[in-house]
């Protein structure tokens, strides 16, 4: 039984008939743990490459969706339908001068973009991209995800503070207030899901959603937990910091929020983190409520591949929704957002938890 | 009887003369009585102060107030004639809040001082600008440069040698 990506790599190598040979070489030197490290390293490289490509694709997709809504074409010149535009953007950003404001805190200012980026990458570790396509199936996977995403406000605060700019500081303050007030409903609704599965492991959650009722309706948690889904969706859009909840940037009020002073590669890091986060959060929504990679299996095609495709389709559907919403609604005001979070979302999440408790105890489903 | 004549009936001392300025009743009033006239004008229902214009006639200044009444749907033009040296006139900000910026603009561009104005500073030009541009004797030959000072406020000088782009 293949359980995670490590074992999958080993399995693929075995199929190719080279694993025994490579393993033999390493064993003859008595350093077979090095092979393990190398394979883990390969995994990380693949994940990193995947995230980078996804982020590039997402920036392109965002532009295209915005353009379609606005009766435009969007990027069309570089590459087919402008597909290479993100590459050009990257090249441009690398070529930009890296400006550090004279009165900024140099060290923290430089460090902040990396601190932003690392949690965005770490979130991917317990995320099941497909059957057995998971870096590590942590037993506390969901807790890990929520804990890691709760780290990002620290980095935003560092960035805002170190910039020594009033707009940056206000943006950072807003980001922190927002993240804290929305992590709570996020966690509470996630717990409601966990009450069904009895496990925090993401793989278990996905497996619990396999199969159908009456042969038609898939056993996704969205059908058991509609309120929970809506709350989680709203909370995660707020967590991602996208319109209608993009207070960290809110360009018409705070110029660019906490990354007002950043330029060049550091700016690109924030950008990267933002879109990686978007993908990760959408993936979590899919995992928790939309059945993850569960779906029809096709004959003759490895289940890993079909499940990956199904997962990506679902995730991109959620991402499309986020982009679509962004093009439709204006921004909420910061105090209204906090009111919404504390006065509506948290009580509703608790209510949801209570209802779920009744259902679980009654054993209806 | 138009509004200007009514005003003359109410305050015969304040109104110097009345007339018509292309469809609009015009009253020329004495500078000292402006506040009293303004009070009466406001009571007559002229609630909208359209515009304040300062005109430099090289020998005298004229300040023209255009009023409109939403209730009566009437116009009224008030004109005050000031001496050319040190032109000063009472501010109407207590009656019409909208007069605030219009008076500041008149002060800025024509150089008429409005006594009693809460914040009579330049509005379109930076503080420290030399001369009032809409005066006929304004020196248009001298170039003036605005630079950002140490404390973030504008600094005006006639010396442009410190500017980056200078031929």
């Amino acid at each position, binding site marked *: 039984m293949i359980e995670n990506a490590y074992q999958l790599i080993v399995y693929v190598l075995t199929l190719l008939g080279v694993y025994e040979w490579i393993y033999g070489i390493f064993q003859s030197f008595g350093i077979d743990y090095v092979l393990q490290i190398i394979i883990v390293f390969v995994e990380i490289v693949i994940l990193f490459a995947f995230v980078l490509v996804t982020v590039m694709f997402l920036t392109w997709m965002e532009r295209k969706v*915005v353009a379609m*809504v*606005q*009766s*435009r074409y969007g990027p069309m010149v570089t590459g087919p339908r402008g597909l290479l535009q993100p590459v050009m953007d990257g090249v441009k950003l690398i070529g930009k001068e890296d400006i550090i404001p004279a009165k900024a805190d140099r060290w923290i200012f430089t460090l902040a973009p990396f601190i932003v980026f690392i949690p965005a990458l770490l979130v991917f570790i317990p995320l099941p991209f497909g059957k057995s396509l998971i870096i590590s199936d942590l037993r506390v996977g969901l807790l890990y995800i929520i804990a890691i995403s709760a780290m990002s406000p620290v980095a935003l605060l560092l960035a805002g503070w170190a910039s020594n700019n*009033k707009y940056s500081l*206000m943006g950072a303050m807003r980001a922190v207030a927002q993240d804290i007030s929305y992590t709570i409903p996020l966690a509470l609704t996630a717990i409601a899901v966990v009450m069904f599965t009895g496990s925090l492991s993401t793989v278990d959650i996905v497996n619990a959603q396999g199969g159908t009722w009456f042969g038609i309706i898939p056993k996704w948690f969205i059908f058991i937990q509609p309120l929970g889904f809506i709350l989680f969706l709203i909370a995660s859009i707020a967590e991602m910091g996208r*319109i*209608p909840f*993009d207070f960290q940037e*809110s*360009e*018409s*009020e*705070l*110029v660019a929020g906490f990354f007002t002073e950043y330029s060049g590669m550091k700016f690109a890091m924030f950008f990267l983190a933002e879109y990686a986060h978007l993908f990760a959060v959408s993936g979590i929504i899919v995992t928790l409520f939309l059945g993850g990679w569960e779906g029809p299996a096709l004959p003759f095609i490895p289940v890993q591949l079909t499940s990956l495709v199904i997962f990506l389709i679902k995730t991109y559907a959620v991402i499309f929704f986020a982009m679509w919403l962004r*093009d*439709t*609604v*204006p*921004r*909420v*005001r*910061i*105090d*209204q957002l906090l009111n919404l979070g504390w006065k509506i979302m948290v009580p509703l999440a608790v209510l949801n938890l209570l209802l779920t408790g009744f259902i679980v105890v009654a054993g209806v489903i | 009887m138009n509004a200007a004549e009514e005003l003359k009936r109410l305050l015969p001392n304040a109104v110097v003369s009345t007339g018509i*300025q*292309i*469809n*609009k009743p015009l009253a020329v009033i004495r500078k000292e009585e402006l506040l009293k006239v303004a009070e009466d004008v406001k009571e007559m229902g002229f*609630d*909208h*102060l*359209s*515009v304040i*214009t300062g*005109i*430099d006639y090289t020998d005298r200044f004229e300040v*023209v107030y*255009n009023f409109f009444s*939403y209730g009566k*749907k009437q*116009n009224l*033009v008030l004109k005050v004639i000031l001496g050319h040296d040190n032109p000063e006139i009472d501010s109407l900000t207590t009656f*019409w*809040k*909208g*007069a605030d*910026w*219009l008076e500041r*603009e008149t002060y800025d*561009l024509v150089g008429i001082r409005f006594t009693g104005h809460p914040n009579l500073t330049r*509005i*379109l*030009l*930076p503080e420290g600008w030399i001369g009032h*541009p*809409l005066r006929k004797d*304004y020196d248009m030959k001298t170039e003036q440069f605005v630079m950002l000072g140490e404390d*973030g406020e504008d600094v005006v000088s006639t010396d442009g040698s410190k500017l980056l782009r200078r031929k």
Partner: protein
Amino acid sequence: METEELLLNMGPVHPSTHGVLRFKLRMDGEIIKECNIVMGYLHRGTEKLGEMKTYLQFTPYTDRLDYISAFPNNYAYAKAIEELAGIEVPLRAEYIRVLTMELNRIINHLVFMGSLLMDLGAATMIMWGFREREKALQLFEMLCGARMTFNYIKPGGVRDDLPDGFIPKLNEFLKDMEKRIDDYEQLINENEIFLMRMKNIGVISAQEAINYGLTGPALRGSGVSYDIRKLEPYSIYPDLDFKVCVQSEGDSFARYMVRVDEMRESLHILRQVVDTMPEAKIVAQAKYGIAPMTGMPSAVSTYFPRIFAPPAGEVYSRIEAPKGELGFYIVSDGTTKPYRVKIRSPSFCNLTAIPRMVVGLKIPDLIAAFGTIDVVLGDVDR
């Protein structure tokens, strides 16, 4: 705990100040304690230029005051001179003038809606608005050869007659526009977030609005049924059937709704103008500046010499521009150049109320209130 007031400089270069306006804000956290407006970054001395150019030469400069809606500027200046010199304008010219001005009102309100919603974070509307604006700009290009700075309405008439194929294209635009306004209203009018941001924000009562000298949609949003087109009818407005759009709440949303309604009303006016437009009697192209040589007034402009000096006098003439009351105070001393040109620009006077409106609100509210006042910095700074 020791707290400190925050001094925040919004602008002169800021995404939502619509140009180069600077708010000096004294803030308590996110709440505005005091708002000072610093302007003049776009001051070009238009009034001084007016004193140095001849009457004809000054028309293109008026285009550059409120560059979003330049036709009303042209017209206000032309009307002032016509009143000063007692010039009769051909009827067809008046129809063309009203046509251009109402079309421009629609454009102005489109840009208003777009920029307001962009400031609120919904970037879609500005693109949709510009999509329709582009069609109108193409109409303007057909009409006078320029897209934003027209120099078309001149004292005594207009520069040129309507080109061939203009009316069918205009009709197409009008038909299209009706549907588009439905789209806009569906997109945003009932949007809960939008209502939350706009209702009860930047409230100003009718009494105060009048006292502060607000005009145009900003005043009509406070419930004062006032429109110079009705109160002091000019051009052919007395013959047209239209109503004054008024909302009573006086908040940002009321000001927004006034403008949306006005767009529909302008479409209504445009349809009437197209239907009742008098035919050109004199088809010969008597071009504007050549009038002294041909000596013949045309269908769209009266006889008007190249060197023109109106009689000495003073005039204050005002019109209802899309943003409010636009007035020109012109003093003539009988020479070819005006002695004094004073421009009463609606943006400048409407901006007066902003510091009063926003005290106690937050930065996002300042942006909403400022957006609904709808200023153009070219008009504020002149």
